[in-house]
């Protein structure tokens, strides 16, 4: 159980690191972020919140990240790496679920399933409820 879990975490972390590094390399190589802020000059414009200005500083929805990736925008690549990182705890819970099921531990299958459902709910359902979108 332990080895599979720890390997899952490790691969997730390595994938996330790799993607973020690629994004940073793209950013320095192209001298731009693909969005409204200028990372080659004074980066104070890049330290702003995306809701502050009308032009998009960085993508924060799956749709905008996807279209940014298609255009190979560095910030979109970095956000992808971040999402992979955000997914590692979820994948870890999923792996635990499979392992507990394999051990036929009913109580913990139920417990882990509950946690997994709550997590998935938090990623996909709650963010789309308008009242929570500040």
């Amino acid at each position, binding site marked *: 159980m*332990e*080895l599979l*879990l*720890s390997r899952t*975490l*490790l691969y997730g*972390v390595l994938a*996330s*690191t790799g993607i*973020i*590094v690629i*994004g*940073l390399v793209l950013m320095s190589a192209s001298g731009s972020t693909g969005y409204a*802020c200028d*990372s*080659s*000059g*004074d*980066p*104070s414009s*890049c*330290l*702003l*919140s*995306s809701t502050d200005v009308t032009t998009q*500083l*960085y993508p*924060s*929805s799956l749709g905008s990240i996807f279209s940014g990736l298609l255009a190979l925008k560095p*910030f979109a690549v*970095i*956000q992808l*790496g*971040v*999402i992979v*990182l*955000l*997914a*590692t*705890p*979820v994948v*870890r*819970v999923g792996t*635990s679920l499979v392992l507990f099921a394999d051990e036929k531990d009913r*109580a*913990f299958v139920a*417990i*882990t399933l509950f*946690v997994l459902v*709550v*997590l998935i*709910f*938090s*990623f*996909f359902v*709650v*963010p*789309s409820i308008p009242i*929570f*979108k500040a």
Partner: protein
Amino acid sequence: MAPLFFLLFMFATAIAAGIVGAIVGIGGGLLVTPVLTIIFGVDIHLAIGASIISIIATSSGGAAAYVRDRVTNIRVGMFLEIATTVGAITGAAVAAYINSQVLFALFGIILMLSILPSIRKRKEELPENVENDSWSNKLKLSTSYPDQRLKREVPYKVTRTPIGLGIMYVAGLISGLLGIGSGAFKVLAMEGAMRLPMKVSTTTSNFMIGVTAAASAGIYFVRGDVNPFIVAPVALGILLGANLGTRILLKAKNTTVRYVFIFVLFGIAVEMIAKALGVGI
């Protein structure tokens, strides 16, 4: 200010945060957030977004080693996560409507008060006279862990599980509301209430904080609180730091880990009270 300066500075800060965070079972946010807001004047919402990412990075970065070395108690962690995840979603969802200053004050005071019992226990390497409660018997939470410092397998029991569950809900709530700081509560709950050995408490907390943060991360992300320019060096630094931190913890004494924890607890409490008083960190 050159962009490279910002990236390298945050990278270095994040490494330090990751090392400490992986040892005491908290997220790296406590060091990253003030540096972002005080030194670089970053908006607090972006700092919180970076903090959530820091927590997940500390967790996933450290947990790989702790789980493999069987120090983390996966069953205790998973069970308590029922409470933390529900708390985290509730907290993150209503975060925009709550006056956080009151919460910071409350949180800071509670942490300050928690330092006293921790200091009293400072010479305690392993907990004594602990018996399982009915929950831990039914769920088979009690087990043992290999201690590299003591050079033996250490069996331990788990008690007062319902209280632990309750504290975990609050920890999750705080994490969702404020974006930082629930790791300290988790360690206090497991070590203080449920009487787990210190290293098991911090490593299990490290395992759990990632899930708690992930439960509120989605909401913060779509709100635009995650800025890739800030998060890239932070995530990378923390992952590296957490990896280094795990090597230190595995070889340390439980009492050493507790000393570091008390020190960090004090730091977080001061930070919380500063925020409560309106100091924008």
